[in-house]
């Protein structure tokens, strides 16, 4: 017996399926997602992340969940070689992403040329002791790029601990599955590209995570220029990567989300060089629509498939 819900949270389309267990587990999952959003959203003034950002340089007591978010963010910074940086908030704001994505475009954002946010990078100087976090002065914390993946991990963990036989937590395309699927087998996750209604790949897994990052969603126009949310910490600017999408399969949602962005930033010349030793598998799509995968991704394909190319929409400039 499975229960499921599709809903909006964390500025994204979300989808949760719970298999087995006592009644009410779906509600447990939904409340947990809301709870984590209330703690982590930088667009909710009362969130713990907002409080951290209001008081850089000051040790702040946070919940265990938020302490874990910061710890994982620092791990991710190391894991990605800096391609993910939790203190990229200043560059994100300077690019015009200064309100929830749904509200971008309602009114003009700040001029990126003016550099209205003075916040700088500073992940190396974040201090965390127990459940006390101190952001370095002059920095800000952005949960984007890790929050949904970690939230999917935490929600799945709670639901399984409460007695579910299986669970699939999909928060904005960052998917975490555990246990059995609705038909006593595993879980099947389709990977989609914005250019096509047909999946690029169909992946099967029983315990793990799939995350996809793309430059073709979350775009907005700021001062007449098309912008996207994927900031390259190395430049502080929206990435000019020649890949349009990267998907990573690995054991944990936060790792998958971080690596998907890191692979995307790497570009088509060496997309997978960061994955050695991580056990993660990946696929990428370049600007021409060509699909490239790591050899190990085949393990997740079974009798299903992945496409080798996607037709570029007519009139699309690369």
């Amino acid at each position, binding site marked *: 017996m499975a229960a*499921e819900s599709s809903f909006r949270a964390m500025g994204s389309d979300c*989808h949760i399926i719970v298999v087995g267990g006592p009644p009410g587990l779906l509600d447990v999952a939904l409340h947990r997602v809301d709870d984590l959003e209330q703690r982590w959203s930088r667009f909710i003034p009362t969130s713990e992340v907002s409080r951290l950002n209001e008081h850089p340089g000051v040790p702040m007591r946070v919940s265990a969940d938020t302490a874990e978010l910061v710890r994982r963010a620092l791990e991710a910074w190391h894991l990605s070689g800096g391609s993910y940086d939790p203190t990229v908030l200043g560059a994100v704001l300077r690019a015009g992403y200064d309100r929830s994505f749904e509200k971008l475009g309602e009114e003009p954002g700040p001029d990126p040329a003016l550099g209205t946010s003075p916040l700088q990078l500073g992940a*190396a100087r974040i201090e965390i002791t127990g459940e006390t976090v101190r952001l370095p002065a002059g920095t800000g914390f952005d949960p984007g790029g890790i929050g949904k993946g970690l939230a999917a991990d935490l929600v799945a963990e709670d639901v399984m601990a409460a007695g579910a036989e299986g669970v699939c937590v999909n928060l904005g395309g960052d998917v975490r599955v555990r246990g059995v699927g609705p038909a*006593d087998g595993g879980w099947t*996750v*389709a990977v*989609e590209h914005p250019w096509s209604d047909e999946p690029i790949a169909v992946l099967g897994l029983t315990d793990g995570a799939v995350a996809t990052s793309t430059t*073709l969603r979350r775009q907005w126009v700021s001062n007449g220029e098309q912008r996207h949310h994927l900031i390259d910490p190395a430049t502080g600017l929206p990435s000019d990567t020649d890949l349009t999408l990267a998907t990573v399969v690995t054991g944990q949602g936060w790792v998958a989300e971080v690596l998907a962005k890191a692979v995307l930033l790497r570009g088509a010349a060496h997309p997978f060089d960061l994955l050695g030793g991580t056990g993660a598998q990946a696929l990428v799509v370049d600007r021409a629509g060509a699909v490239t995968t790591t050899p190990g991704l085949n393990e997740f394909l079974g009798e299903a498939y992945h496409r080798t190319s996607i037709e570029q929409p007519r009139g699309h*400039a690369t």
Partner: protein
Amino acid sequence: MEHTPRRRRPHPAHRARLITGVASATAALTLTGSMALLAATTSQAAVSTTQVDTESDDGPVVATRATTAVTASTATATRAATVAHTISHGS
């Protein structure tokens, strides 16, 4: 300047629900026969710490900086059915 063409597509969450509905109806046919486990690895992989030189490090010593390894467990594979339970559509 790049333009992303607007295409009329079902809402992703709606599509996911539709696909899952199909999966439920055809589960016995599509999943039972194809979901034999491939017994893929579940090992822990150690990833060496990478130093990042994007900033000066003149601040106080940070406890978490001492992290020497990051672990990332691998996913466990099954054969994928052709009908998906959910969609990773990218963000």
